[in-house]
């Protein structure tokens, strides 16, 4: 066993500060209204050769007065269709697809408040300590003006009813009503699959946020 660095003391985390109203400049400059980087990170993340069902996720982020916010940064992190994360800590046997990073970034639209992510539906991922599988889900992280520290939540898929019912994370949420805040309904139109995932920052339908 190695001794702790710095004589056994831990180094405290840097405190968070709000991303502010101009988060777009740094992270999604095209939405701020200008071109600067040649390569931009975005919300359309599955190339044509990535295996998996193509899905679109759309939603809004509501504040406590019921207003759809129009300046929120939305990031997602997910496994591939085989349920494997593109990361060295994932030692599962499912096929790794190096062309699919699994991370998306976008913002709620300045006019409509809607965010849009185009990706593939992830597979089920093994649970903590190798226990039972978690239902397919996408990890969300949002930041904005008025949000002092980024908020983490998960989106689950309404058509995965059996897997959701057995999901070890959904099941630790004490109130069944609150679990529903994480489940996105599915709709199909002209062969395009859309999941709608609205996030409520506070109020009667407040989304479950995690401290993981």
């Amino acid at each position, binding site marked *: *066993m190695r001794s*702790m*660095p*710095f004589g*056994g003391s*831990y*180094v*405290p*985390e*840097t*405190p*968070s*500060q*709000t*991303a502010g109203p*101009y*988060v777009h*400049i*740094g*992270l999604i400059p095209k939405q*701020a*209204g200008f071109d*600067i*980087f040649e*390569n931009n990170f975005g919300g359309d993340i599955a190339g044509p050769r990535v295996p998996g069902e193509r899905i679109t996720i759309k939603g809004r982020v509501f*504040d*406590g007065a019921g207003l759809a916010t129009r*300046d929120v940064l939305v990031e997602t*992190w997910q496994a591939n269709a085989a349920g494997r994360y*593109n*990361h*060295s*800590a994932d*030692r599962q*046997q499912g096929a790794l697809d190096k062309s699919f*990073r699994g991370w998306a970034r976008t913002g709620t639209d*300045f006019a409509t408040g809607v965010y849009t992510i185009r990706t593939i539906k992830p597979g089920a991922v*093994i649970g*903590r*300590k*190798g*226990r*039972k599988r*978690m239902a397919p889900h996408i990890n969300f*992280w949002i930041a904005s003006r*008025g*949000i*002092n*520290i*980024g908020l983490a939540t998960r989106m689950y898929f309404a058509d995965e009813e059996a897997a959701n019912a057995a999901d070890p*994370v959904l*099941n*630790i949420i004490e109130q069944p009503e609150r679990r529903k805040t994480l489940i996105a309904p599915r709709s199909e139109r002209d062969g395009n699959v859309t999941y709608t995932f609205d996030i409520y*920052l*506070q109020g009667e339908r407040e*989304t479950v*946020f*995690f*401290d*993981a």
Partner: protein
Amino acid sequence: MSRPSLPKASAAPTVLHGAGQERGQKTGNAEGRRGGRHADEVRRSTVDAEFHQRDRNIHPPAHTPVYKTSVLRSPRIPLWSLQNSLSEVTGPIFSPDELGPDDHDLLHNYATDGEPIGEQIIVHGYVLDGNGKPISGTLVEVWQANAGGRYRHRNDTYIAAIDPNFGGCGRMITDENGHYFFRTIKPGAYPFRNHVNSWRPAHIHFSVFGTAFVQRLITQMYFEGDPLIAHDSIIATIPDKTAVDRLVARLDLNAALPLECLAYRFDIVLRGTRQTLFENKLQGS
């Protein structure tokens, strides 16, 4: 491969149970127990990669009336504590070839006919984890106002002029020692709608990733000696004043370029994992 157990008095908080949160959670499931050698490895690797509990006392709480916008944008129900699974201990990795050669040079990455107006500075520092270990190869993104305190953003209508040669954003990937640096101009202070006469001290926004999505952090860096720091409503959301001090970059004369520009030092610490407690390290293996 047996792992030593944590010493009894270890400061490492290993369990995040909140009252009533274990309900319905089993302590050992057949799938994991039965899965054989590979399942054992998966189990061990996720446990090794777990992160120390986030110390919420050093961060601003969600609801901080001193910063008015937070009032309607703050969850009122406590966050649900969640033990780390693969979904938490993994996160996006970026490679240097995704960035352009001038992405970290805010003096030149947008300029077309000359340099931006203002005091040129270097900002540099290390990205570390909570064990003091450098985090190499991680993406650091920055954005800021120009020397007059104006952002290049369609929603910013402050009276200061837009600088045609300044975009106000940059990005870089930490080197093998966790070091990052960029050149820019010192941003100006500006007023914002909070109280009738609220001003933001000069600051640079930082976005950092680490190696796992639970390390994700956005923060702001301030400048040593700025008198507005004591009056800022957004800094005031942080209850721990020693934590505020860690957001203030120090003048670093050793890194300044003589007859050219000053330098500021700003180190960023992300959450640490438990894995560094053990010789059986996961990173890079």
